[in-house]
């Protein structure tokens, strides 16, 4: 029979070939395996550091910066960075194939900004079982060796406080335009900021209003603040949506130049308001530093300097010394301030 022969040929040929050219790998999950701790020592920790950089998507100026930072660090420590990634952001498991390919390639480590907290875990665990270190940055997963966190409560509060001090000259009335009233991050930052402000009795916090991270609501709340508090000197918006809406309102009102806007914003969206004087300085983090720190953290993990346990210490080149915090997180540090002197270096957001 033509068909039976052909099927037999197909089955035999492909099975023989695949089986024949296959060498069982240590890390392959199989029904009998499950012992990942011994496999971890089998990674190629000696020799060159071969790192796969996997951002959320390619062609994103923000991630171009973080990859540039990772490459800068790689140049200093003699590692190679290969950037791969999906071309569009958002699909939960679009990064799985890249993690799997890196696992097959047997790279030393993967630097990952995860598109999804859970969808990548199966492939991340398979990579870890092969001895590959997985360090997330920018966006975390529920499984990884280390997370380089760009936002730390104290770091953000400290930066906001410094900008308030600087832009009010140490005295005057300020107001906060936040996101939602229940936004976890914003509330933690505002609480920490209030504690810092207690040391400066000349700075008076008039009000905290909530724009719900909606452009129009934030715009209207800004309008309300300006009419309610005529002596207001500064609006602090620790949210990228809020700061842009506030700046847009202030720059088109007659308070322009009298009331300043600061907070957390992306350089791209805030650049025009920096140019017209609505803001003097605002902050976020520097993705380049984030990539730089991530690569040094990878090196420390591979060298065995750190294991990801709380209290582990390592040095990250020009950024200095870092300590691993709770849950295997390493905070990048104080937010990065953008002003007229450096804005042109950050073509993203």
């Amino acid at each position, binding site marked *: 029979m*033509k*068909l039976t022969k052909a099927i037999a040929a197909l089955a035999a040929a492909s099975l023989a070939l695949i089986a024949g050219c296959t*060498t069982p790998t240590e890390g*392959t999950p*199989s029904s009998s395996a499950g012992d990942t701790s011994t496999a971890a020592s089998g990674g190629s920790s000696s020799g060159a550091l071969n790192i796969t950089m996997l951002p959320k998507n390619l062609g994103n100026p923000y991630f171009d910066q973080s990859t540039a930072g990772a490459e800068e660090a790689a140049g200093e420590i003699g590692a190679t960075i290969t950037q791969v990634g999906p071309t569009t952001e958002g699909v*939960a498991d679009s990064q799985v194939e890249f993690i799997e390919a890196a696992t097959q*390639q047997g790279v030393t480590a993967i630097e990952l900004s995860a598109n999804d907290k859970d969808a990548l875990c199966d492939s991340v665990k398979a990579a870890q079982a092969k001895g590959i270190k997985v360090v997330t940055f920018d966006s975390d997963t529920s499984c990884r060796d280390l997370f380089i966190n760009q936002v730390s409560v104290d770091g953000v509060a400290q930066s906001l406080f410094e900008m308030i001090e600087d832009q009010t000259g140490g005295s005057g009335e300020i107001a906060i335009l936040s996101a939602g009233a229940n936004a976890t991050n914003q509330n933690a930052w505002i609480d920490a900021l209030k504690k810092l402000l207690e040391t400066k009795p000349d700075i008076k916090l008039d009000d905290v209003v909530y724009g719900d991270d909606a452009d129009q609501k934030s715009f209207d709340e800004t309008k309300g603040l300006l009419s309610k508090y005529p002596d207001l000197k500064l609006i602090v918006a620790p949210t990228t949506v809020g700061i842009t809406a506030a700046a847009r309102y202030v720059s088109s009102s007659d308070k322009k130049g009298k009331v300043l806007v600061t907070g957390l914003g992306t350089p791209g969206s805030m650049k025009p308001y920096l140019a017209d004087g609505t803001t003097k300085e605002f902050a976020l983090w520097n993705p380049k530093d984030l990539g730089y720190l991530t690569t040094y953290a990878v090196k420390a993990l591979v060298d065995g300097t750190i294991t990801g346990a709380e209290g582990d210490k390592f040095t990250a080149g020009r950024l200095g010394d870092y300590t691993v915090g709770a849950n295997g997180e390493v905070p990048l540090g104080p937010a990065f301030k953008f002003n007229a002197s450096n804005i042109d270096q950050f073509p993203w957001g």
Partner: protein
Amino acid sequence: MNYYPDHARPLWRRALVNREMAIVYLLVATVAFSCLTVDNFAQSITVYNILRNYFSALILALPMCLVMITGDIDISVGSMVGLSCSLLGLMYISGVPFELAMVVAIGVGALGGLLNGLLVTRVGLPSLAVTLGTMALFRGLAVGALGTTTVTKFPEFWTAIPKYAIGETGVPVVMVFFAVLMAAFIWLLHFTAFGRGVYAIGLNSQAAAFSGVDSARTRTVLFVLAGTLSGVGGVYWTLLRGVARGDTGSGLELQVIAAVVLGGVSVFGGVGAVYGCVAGVLLIGVLANALQVVGVTADIIKIITGGLLIASVMAGSLIAWTKNRRVGAKAASAQTE
């Protein structure tokens, strides 16, 4: 004397030299070439990754193969995978027992397939138009059912299933299910009257009707099979990734159809074999994986597989054209004798 080109060649040549076997040889050559030239390709984790990621495409290629041999097409399968995945997630978070939810998700796949089949055969609409509509419909329902939520944390007993491999080979245990399914489809298409009917409908539906083939029933059954296996594909994908989302399976229909056409099924119907369709999926899978391990980017991989598809279709037409010329010349010389 009439000249029957299909029976003019000895059996071994007919079995080993044909359109489907060409793809099998290409697959074997690609595997061999990748093993020899691509670093880190020849390992069991490669087999594991390819088969796990292409499992849905493999099981969907089976009904798609038959659907396309009848001359129909079903482009709603990817959306049905999404709907099945999405409903599974929705039912699970609503407290439906997981085993029941899986059965319902597969059942919804069967119903969706039945809807396609009835619209095509009873209402008499072209399958492309019908499944274009249900593609949008199923995707809309899938995304609508879950909204922007992502359901995770499914029972580990079930999510572990796609992760088991057979010993050290890297072949996922679920491939046993595929092997059984493939055997069933080979039997159905190549060894039953139903299967003869499938070819007959694709070659000439009127002639098939006059020969007693129940065209409407056959085609409806095939759409139901496609829908049911889309339901299975959605459940598999949910277990594999441990995540239910409405966008699961986006673009899967094109991957499956490309593989089936690459595997030798004519888009005009009447031509094709199950093993060709399976080889088509594996060829695309092996090629994509090897290129990815080399470090070729996703867009280039798409260009290469697209080019391969066009080349394979063109090669088929070219061979048919030269054959016809030769046969024409032979027949002409036979007549003059």
